[in-house]
């Protein structure tokens, strides 16, 4: 009864519903790998050109030695020729083994051709063994020294090249400030060095951003490197801060080799190198690590700079808030004095005032309290803006509705001005926080009322321009001179002192409007009206809507 009795595997699957399967290579696989590795080394060691070179050198040395012998020169010269041969062998071949063998063969060949009895491997004279040993040691040491020198020269050249690339990278990275640029520079340098395609994804908020693909050939098709599997490997590398992927023992079926871009403190991203059956050699590997280190440092610097800028912004906001508070507590006193004073007069001496005086007092109390109400509205908006995006609730709103709502809140002085709203033919939907935009319109219109004469006309128009909605609020008052245009958006600036109301201007309205509009990704601009007056125009992002039927 198979259905009733689950197998062990089924039980296991039930116990762990999402198992990760890791296949750990057994001994066979390991052996195959080792064998391959060993063979490749041997092939490398015994290559045909090197063998020809070595044999050729010995033949050449023997021929030259024979010539010397014919000329009757001493054995010492012939020995020198052989040592020279070994030295040259060491220089022109790739491995020390050639010079070792060449040394041994030289001694044997010398013995064979040039010692009595000739053409045998025996030697009569007693001091020959000493000669042979000395010759061997001299040949071998010279060869070894030559090889070491060659290796050092090569290393020095490599080191110089590596230093140059690193230095270039360093310099280039120093010049850039943006994350994207840092990534591009790093990738360019790595491509220059290794001539391979690669992917780089940076980390943000504990997750990897989608990778950027860099190709040597300028190709952009990288779908095969963007599979779930590749992304998972990259993420594993990010989480575990270890390299993985192709040519490593971890998740080696990936197409790329993934390494983390890290400093000692944190991992800033992951780089994926396209391997395509060509593993990295040790040199590539070490320089890759150095450049990634540089890149990580640059990213760390960038992050630190960003944090510093944020801190500075916070400090600046704090300063602004302090200024605001000081300015408010000062400016609150004036209307409060007027309200409480007038009310107290009415309470204690109410009967002594004539009707007209009383009317004046009531109206003063009303005006001052309205001013306070407006101030409170603005302050609330300021705090919401300052607390950042969280408190801005962007919704799809109808622009007409917002403007109509705002016009209902315009202070009662509007009876002395004509306010006209001309709506656009198009029905405009905007993405905005309605309350804040209402506040923007109220402030601009109130401002226009405050700084223009009675019977001025204030015209509000809306317009759709590409993906922006424009709201224009134009008046035909005295306008704003060019030299003051910039300062109207500064906090605590209030216009010409000649206007009676200006003592009640906190200079908060327009700067607030500007920051609200900016927070919506729009722009608030001030231009001149013809023949006179000012036009405030602000833009808001529009929204298209798929109607739900």
């Amino acid at each position, binding site marked *: 009864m198979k259905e009733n009795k689950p197998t062990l595997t089924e039980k296991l699957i039930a116990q762990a519903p999402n198992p990760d399967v890791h296949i750990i290579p057994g001994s066979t696989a390991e052996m195959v790998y080792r064998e391959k590795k060993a063979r490749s080394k041997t092939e490398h060691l015994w290559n045909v050109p090197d063998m020809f070179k070595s044999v050729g050198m010995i033949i050449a040395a023997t021929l030259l030695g024979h010539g010397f012998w014919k000329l009757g020169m001493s054995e010492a010269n012939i020995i020198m020729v052989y040592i020279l041969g070994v030295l040259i062998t060491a220089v022109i071949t790739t491995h020390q083994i050639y010079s070792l063998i060449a040394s041994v063969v030289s001694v044997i060949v010398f013995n064979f051709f040039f010692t009595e009895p000739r053409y045998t491997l025996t030697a009569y004279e007693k001091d020959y063994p000493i000669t042979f040993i000395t010759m061997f040691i001299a040949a071998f040491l010279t060869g070894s020294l030559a090889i070491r020198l060659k290796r050092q020269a090569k290393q020095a050249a490599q080191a110089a090249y590596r230093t140059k690339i690193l230095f270039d990278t360093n310099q280039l990275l120093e010049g850039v400030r943006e994350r994207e640029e840092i990534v591009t520079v790093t990738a360019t340098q790595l491509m220059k060095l290794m001539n391979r395609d690669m992917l780089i994804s940076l980390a943000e908020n504990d997750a990897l951003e989608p990778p950027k693909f860099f190709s040597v050939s300028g190709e952009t098709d990288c779908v095969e490197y963007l599979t779930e599997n590749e992304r998972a490997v990259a993420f594993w590398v990010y989480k575990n801060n270890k390299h993985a992927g192709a040519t490593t023992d971890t998740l080696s079926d990936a197409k790329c080799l993934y390494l983390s871009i890290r400093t000692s403190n944190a991992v800033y991203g992951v780089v994926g190198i396209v391997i395509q059956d060509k593993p990295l050699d040790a040199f590539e590997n070490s320089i890759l690590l150095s450049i990634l280190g540089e890149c990580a440092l640059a990213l760390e610097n960038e992050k630190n700079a960003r944090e510093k800028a944020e801190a500075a912004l916070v400090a600046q906001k704090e300063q602004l808030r302090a200024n605001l508070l000081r300015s408010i507590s000062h400016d609150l006193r004036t209307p409060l004095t007027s309200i409480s004073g007038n009310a107290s007069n009415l309470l204690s001496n109410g009967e002594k005032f004539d009707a007209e005086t009383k009317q004046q007092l009531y109206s003063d109390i009303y005006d001052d309290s309205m001013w306070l109400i407006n101030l409170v509205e603005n302050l609330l908006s300021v705090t919401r803006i300052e607390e950042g995006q969280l408190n801005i609730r962007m919704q799809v*709103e109808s622009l007409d509705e917002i403007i109509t709502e705002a016009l209902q809140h315009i202070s009662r002085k509007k009876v002395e001005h004509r306010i006209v709203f001309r709506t656009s033919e198009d029905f405009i*939907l905007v993405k905005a926080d309605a309350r804040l935009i209402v506040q923007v319109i109220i402030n601009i219109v109130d401002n226009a009322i405050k700084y223009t004469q009675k019977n001025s006309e204030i015209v509000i128009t809306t317009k759709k321009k590409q993906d922006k909605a424009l709201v224009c609020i134009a008046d035909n008052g005295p306008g704003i001179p060019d030299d003051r245009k910039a300062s109207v958006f500064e906090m605590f600036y209030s216009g010409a002192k000649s206007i009676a109301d200006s003592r009640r201007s906190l200079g908060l309205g327009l700067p607030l409007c500007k920051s609200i509009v900016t927070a919506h990704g729009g722009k608030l601009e001030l231009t001149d009206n013809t023949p006179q007056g000012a036009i405030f125009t602000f833009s808001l992002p529009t929204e298209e809507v*798929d109607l739900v039927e």
Partner: protein
Amino acid sequence: MNKTLILIVEDDRPVQNLMTTTLKAHDYRYLTAANGEAAILEVSSHNPDIVLLDLGLPDMDGIEVIKKIRTWSNVPIIIISARSEDSDKVEALDAGADDYLTKPFSVEELLARLRVTERRLAAGQGEQQTASSVFVNGKLRVDYSAGCAYLEGEELHLTPIEYKLLCLLSKNVGKVLTHTFITQNIWGHSWENDVASLRVFMATLRKKLEQNSDSVQYIQTHVGVGYRMLKVE
């Protein structure tokens, strides 16, 4: 002589005084309560015609008060909230409140809201209105059984959604309906896209209802809250 009985629930003495003075000056009868407990007691014992309810009460949440009252009474409730309680306002409307006033409010505004509510009470004892098959509001006439709407005797050409909206608004005339309430009733869910669509349909419906700019306004927008159909003479 106005005989509407109004219950004022407000814990702040000056604001309470302001309201009582205003009501007295306009010949309303009124009761006061300074907290939620007292408010519920007053509603059950005196059966007021309209309740003015401050959301920020010392003893309990204003929304709780609405829910309690709504368990047995359909008395119109007008919420009074401070500006910072914007989301509470929507919550309170969804809980069953009819209208809202934002502090600071003007005396005219308060009186206007009361008149709107009174008109609704007078026009039709709400329930009867919704039960009948024809709704009349000024020049607007909606015949629910025929599924048609007329303005000045002329049939309005409405899309199905517009007609549904019009019915929803007319059946709740005088009441502020929140975006969530409307979208729930029209589409059965309330996603962001629905609210956006709602604005579009509301704009087209309004265009058809208020063809010339000097004609009466039937639908009122409450930014950030919702819409309401006004009862017109």
